[in-house]
């Protein structure tokens, strides 16, 4: 293999490039990134960076003096893929011909229809998004956050820490209910309410109001929530539009086998844009967690370099974290597999507890809230357990 083109220069792309070098690949390595920035860490964008506790230099993913011996093509997007010629077409009119292609184009924040035309309406995915939101929050008094997923809950907490009046509008029963399950998500709801976030549950947004600049959010029941800034956190969609017509099998992401191989030999996909086959649960699914990209980078590099003959280790259960206020939330596994959940340590009322989700007798997921040491022991237990669903 003489040339590998990694399309996407964020966490998954960088770590795959690094893994390729680490696994002995010495040929030409081209990294294409749509954003003009060197690879940076996204999780702090809704937390410490938005709060102003850390700066842009702290976000860098590359180590001091790290040398990948790669050609960086930053600020250009991939617009098309010719899988037969193995050519990636770029937005500046050039193209890169490669023997191996790594698709790591990530995902984009989903937007509310028509929201773009109003100033003061934000999504949060990129460094530029975070800069813009940070600037707007400095001048704002009232913030409405739409969506109680990770981004929504974290932005609500950060904005509250900044002293703003915050309303969190959630279509479900509580923030993070989708991943934690309704019972445990209630503890997150309590946390937010105690810290002064106004929660509006089971609500649907019908309209963003304002003339030129947003001044509020209208709900389906007619309620109008006044706002100086609106943050829309309603999920992300994989960046795969550029692959349409390429012949690559696409679904909710680039459809991959359990090692990241796509339907075309020599082309692999990893990170938020990729839907790997999950042998434990059956079916293809995207893992939109930081640790998912990290774990799979080495696997996908081996898949590419071996021509698909490498046998990947079984994927570990998904682990993710979230920092809200001064609370560290850690979770591993899949709550939906559980038929029971019990608090085994601490007390949710103190925002310090550990809960175990079980299917019958078998632990399938664990939630830690300000229980870092104990959570690590449980994570170890779940990750090293023999074959288990999730």
């Amino acid at each position: 293999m003489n040339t590998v083109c990694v399309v996407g220069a964020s966490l998954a792309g960088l770590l795959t490039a690094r893994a390729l070098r680490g696994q002995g690949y010495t040929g030409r390595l081209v990294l294409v990134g749509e954003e003009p920035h060197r690879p940076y860490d996204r999780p702090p964008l809704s937390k410490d960076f938005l709060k102003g506790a850390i700066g842009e230099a702290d976000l860098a993913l590359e180590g001091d003096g790290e040398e990948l011996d790669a050609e960086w093509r930053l600020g250009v997007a991939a617009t098309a893929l010719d899988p037969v010629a193995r050519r990636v077409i770029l937005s500046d009119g050039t193209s890169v011909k490669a023997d191996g292609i790594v698709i790591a184009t990530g995902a984009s924040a989903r937007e509310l229809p028509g929201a773009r035309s109003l100033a003061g309406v934000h999504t949060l995915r990129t460094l530029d998004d975070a800069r813009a939101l940070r600037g707007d929050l400095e001048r704002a008094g009232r913030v409405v956050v739409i969506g109680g997923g990770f981004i929504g809950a974290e932005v609500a907490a950060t904005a509250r820490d900044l002293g703003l009046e915050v309303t969190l509008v959630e279509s479900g029963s509580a923030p993070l209910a989708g991943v934690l399950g309704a019972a445990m998500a209630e503890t997150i709801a309590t946390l937010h309410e105690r810290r002064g976030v106004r929660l509006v549950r089971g609500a649907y947004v019908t309209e963003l109001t304002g003339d030129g600049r947003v001044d509020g959010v209208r709900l389906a029941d007619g309620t109008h929530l006044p706002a100086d800034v609106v943050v829309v956190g309603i999920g992300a969609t994989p960046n795969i539009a550029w692959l349409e017509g390429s012949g690559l099998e696409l679904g909710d992401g680039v459809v991959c086998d359990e090692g990241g191989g796509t339907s075309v030999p020599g082309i692999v996909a990893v990170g938020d844009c990729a839907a790997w086959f999950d042998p434990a649960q059956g079916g293809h699914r995207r893992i939109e967690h930081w640790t998912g990209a990290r774990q799979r980078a080495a696997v996908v590099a081996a898949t590419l370099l071996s021509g698909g003959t490498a046998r990947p280790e079984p994927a570990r259960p998904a682990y993710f974290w979230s920092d809200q206020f001064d609370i560290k939330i850690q979770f591993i596994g899949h709550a939906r597999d559980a038929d029971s959940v019990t608090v085994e340590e601490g007390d949710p009322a103190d925002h310090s507890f550990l809960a175990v989700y079980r299917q019958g007798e078998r632990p399938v997921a664990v939630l830690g809230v300000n229980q870092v040491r104990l959570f690590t022991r449980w994570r170890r237990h779940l990750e090293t357990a023999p074959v288990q669903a999730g």
Partner: protein
Amino acid sequence: MIPACPLASLPRGEALRVEADPPIAVFHTEDGEIFAIDDTCTHQDASLADGWLEGCEIECPLHASRFDLRTGQVDAPPAKRPVRTHQVVVEDDVIYVVPSDEEPNLPPGVTLKGQA
């Protein structure tokens, strides 16, 4: 030299946090070796003594960067900088740590108590 604990009170596979400034983590590996490094992850304020010890590596309990206990080097982001390693002395069945005189690589927002 800082006394950490009696050797007998730190079984293999376990870790101990020593309240120095900055705090130091002492590890007893499954192979019976004892190592000491700075306890605070260089990425964010997390206690490495709470982490996952595997061989001669400790994985940060929050974001899973792994530090080599022998060298302090880190394997992958989000941490980028190594932790300091400290010399360990075992005398009369007591573990002591000789703190490094290098500058610590503390994460943003964490300072030495002496400078706080």
